[in-house]
């Protein structure tokens, strides 16, 4: 018996082919989801409608979707920097929380400052607190090669404990009945460019995110530091050999990565939630990992991917009207991820028929 085919490595695949393969993968994921829904006796068409169409149906919904996409985009940009270095930062959740706490300290206790001073200082504060929190695992990775995946992950839980401690303790709000943080005063909130509904609800976080896209894009592709990140990511030995200070690069990059995640925390508290809350991160850090990976760490592609995932996350809420658990959205995200991952195989390898006959000269 001889297998009729075997697998070989593919030397190179053109960009447009790669795009097609990945699009097909996403379609496959929707097909798998539909089959699953049919098995569970749900109408797949309505599920997909709820997931993909409802969130963009009108201006009110669209604004909510964009607001979420903005935060996802910022987090993905942050994660992308670390991933480029093959530093598996899955601690975005914790870094968002810390960034949120940093910004909220000013938002809660210094809200007498004028808005044009307060907001920039809050932004810087969130960057610094988030960044420093990311610096902890980076230091140990650089110094002792401590496993960063698990370290950053544990820091997520620790950050949540800190947040709860603040909520039930020192930062407990004025409402004596419920342990909650106070709502931000107006000058600690991100303003909007529009004045009428629904667009007045869209705060300027989107400008921050698009600015960050440009900055991160230039940083990764056209600066010396960005070049260093790529080299360290590809081969630490080569980086050392070329005289790069790998420890410093690791810490610097991670500080930036976590800092940007921290800024996402700021946009959450100051824009979306209008206060600090336990839900400040709420799994966004994990969704952003998927976005960063699917976008191949390309900041421009991240805009599209963030929007898509925001639509699906918002769509989860609409599923409830159809008696479907919103967790379905999470499951479908998992399916998409597996399908796109699987598609990588067709980008890197190809299947070849094995010829039995002797080759002709």
């Amino acid at each position, binding site marked *: *018996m*001889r*297998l009729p085919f*075997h697998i*070989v*490595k*593919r*030397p*190179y695949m053109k960009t447009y082919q790669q795009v097609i393969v990945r699009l097909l993968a996403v379609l496959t994921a929707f097909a798998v989801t539909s089959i699953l829904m049919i098995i569970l006796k749900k109408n797949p068409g309505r599920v997909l409608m709820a997931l993909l169409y409802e969130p963009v149906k009108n201006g009110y919904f669209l604004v909510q979707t964009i607001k979420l996409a903005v935060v996802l985009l910022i987090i993905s940009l942050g994660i992308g920097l670390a991933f480029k270095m093959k530093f598996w930062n899955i601690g975005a959740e914790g870094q968002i929380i810390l960034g949120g706490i940093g910004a909220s300290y000013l938002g809660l206790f210094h809200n007498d400052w004028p808005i044009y001073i307060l907001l920039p200082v809050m932004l810087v504060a969130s960057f610094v607190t988030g960044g420093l929190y990311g610096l902890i695992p980076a230091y140990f990775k650089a110094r002792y090669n401590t496993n960063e995946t698990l370290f950053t992950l544990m820091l997520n839980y620790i950050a949540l404990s800190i947040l709860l401690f603040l909520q039930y303790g020192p930062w407990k709000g004025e409402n004596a009945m419920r342990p909650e943080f106070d709502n931000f005063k107006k000058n600690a909130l991100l303003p909007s460019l529009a004045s009428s509904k629904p667009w007045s609800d869209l705060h300027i976080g989107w400008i921050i995110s698009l600015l960050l896209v440009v900055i991160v894009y230039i940083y990764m592709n*056209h*600066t*010396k*530091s*960005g*070049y260093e990140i*790529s*080299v360290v990511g*590809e*081969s630490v*030995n*080569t980086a*050392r*050999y*070329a*005289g*790069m*200070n790998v420890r410093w690069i690791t810490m610097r990059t991670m500080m930036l990565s976590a800092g940007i995640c921290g800024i996402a925390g700021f946009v959450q508290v100051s824009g979306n939630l209008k206060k600090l809350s336990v839900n400040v991160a709420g799994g966004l850090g994990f969704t952003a990992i998927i976005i960063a990976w699917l976008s191949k760490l390309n900041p421009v592609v991240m805009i599209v991917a963030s929007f898509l995932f925001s639509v699906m996350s918002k769509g989860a809420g609409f599923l409830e009207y159809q008696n479907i658990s919103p967790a379905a959205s999470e499951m479908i995200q998992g399916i998409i991820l597996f399908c796109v991952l699987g598609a990588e195989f067709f980008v890197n390898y190809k299947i*070849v028929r*094995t*010829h*039995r*006959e*002797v*080759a002709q*000269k």
Partner: protein
Amino acid sequence: MQCRILSCIAFSILNICDKGDSVNNVLFELRGITKLFGNVVANKNIDFSVREGEIHALLGENGSGKTTLMNILSGIYTPDSGTIIINGEEVTIKSPEDAIKLGIGMIHQHFKLVDVFSAKENIIMGQAGSSRRNQKELTKELEELSNRFGLNINLDKKIYQMSVSEKQTVEIMKVLFRKSKILILDEPTAVLTPQEIDKLFEILRELRADGCAIVLITHKLNEVMEISDRVTILRKGESVATVETKKTNPKELTELMVGHSVDLSIDRPVVKDKTKDVLKVENLTIYDEEGVKVIDGMSFTVDGGEILGVAGVAGSGQKELCEAIAGLHPVADGTIEFKGRNIVGLNPNEIINLGVSMSFIPEDRLGMGLVANMDMVDNVILKDYRRQKGLLLSRKPARKMALKMVEDLDIVTQGVQYPIRLLSGGNVQKVLLGREINSSPQLLITAYPVRGLDINSSYVIYDMLNEQKKKGVAVLYIGEDLNVLLELCDRIMVICGGRIMGMVDPKDVTIEDLGLMMTGHTYSQILAERGTGQ
């Protein structure tokens, strides 16, 4: 005649041969084997057959497809077309498991051993539980085997504690234990000293007498002439000829191998005005990560305008020496002076800026010095991007330089924007060395620069090194091929276990002398022995 008697004895002991009287039977045959890697044709319609009781050399340059062909026989690769016939029957080999069942055993160039296992565990692993042998019986069988072939081995020693030749012994035990009838050895002598090679050949002769079919993959002509019965020559993936060793000579083999007549001598230009002591190493001592002393009190100098060769068994401290000079490895004691300035303690970047260039070609070729997934431009920029002003990175000068390198060094590539992992080994090494030379260093350290290259590419590299030498650059050349060291270098430093065994003039020593020094004899001992011998 003797051969036949021996093989009869062997039959009774080992029970691995069918009949002692069928020495000339063809044991296995490959027909019309073709194998492609992407667009590269590794094997093209190759026919190859080996008889019982024969040592068959498979000769060819690096990259000619020898290893690929044998990997197909041992089940690692699937051929794109062709058939395999063993004992007259067509067989299909889908995996190494199939190959082992058919009695095929291969000793790979890069040993396939599990580092944290003991020798015994490595030998028995993968043996399906056909017979639940107890530990005692097993140990006894292994000991008998090692006694019979005079293999000296500690079965409980862990692989990572072993020397290269010990590891090879484990590999040999593996195939013996599996009673393989078809033995393939891929460049087995590359890592051995001349004395160890003799011992290996003894074992091969004994196995030949047992009726085994042995394939010896090599690119060394003297070995072919010494031990093989027949030789098949591959060139660029095609089988060029199969000849009886007795009826040929090294010159003819070389021509078959390279495709045209070549002058096998390497230039050694004489440089008049040398700069004294560009590099001066004194009393250097280095420990590795596990705290083992890997360089033990080394002192030597390299002048500008000379090539100092370093010879030694793999793992004698070459890597650590290179890394220490380049500032990549901590130094425990001693000094490294570059043009009179102690550079111990400087960081790699400062050392690069002083004009020291180091290129180390590791076994996987791409490990240090280049980034496989980046294009040529980004690789060229690696060493001097820091000299650009400001935060931004301009790739324009690097692109220019890359294009110039492609032209000057005949680098075959689809374009400078393609990832260099898509380039062939020779071209990758040209990129690396070309970049290093372009930074106009005053000290060029190069380790194994011709590793895995064909003869023509190798000579390009030798020429590049000689060019540098003529410019007055001090070159430290760490090599594998002792013949090349003897021809290319002005002086040779032989090291063993991190110590210098001798600093010799290539004109005064033989390859055997080098081999003895590599295994721990000092040059003065050798001279003394030679004195008593005369």
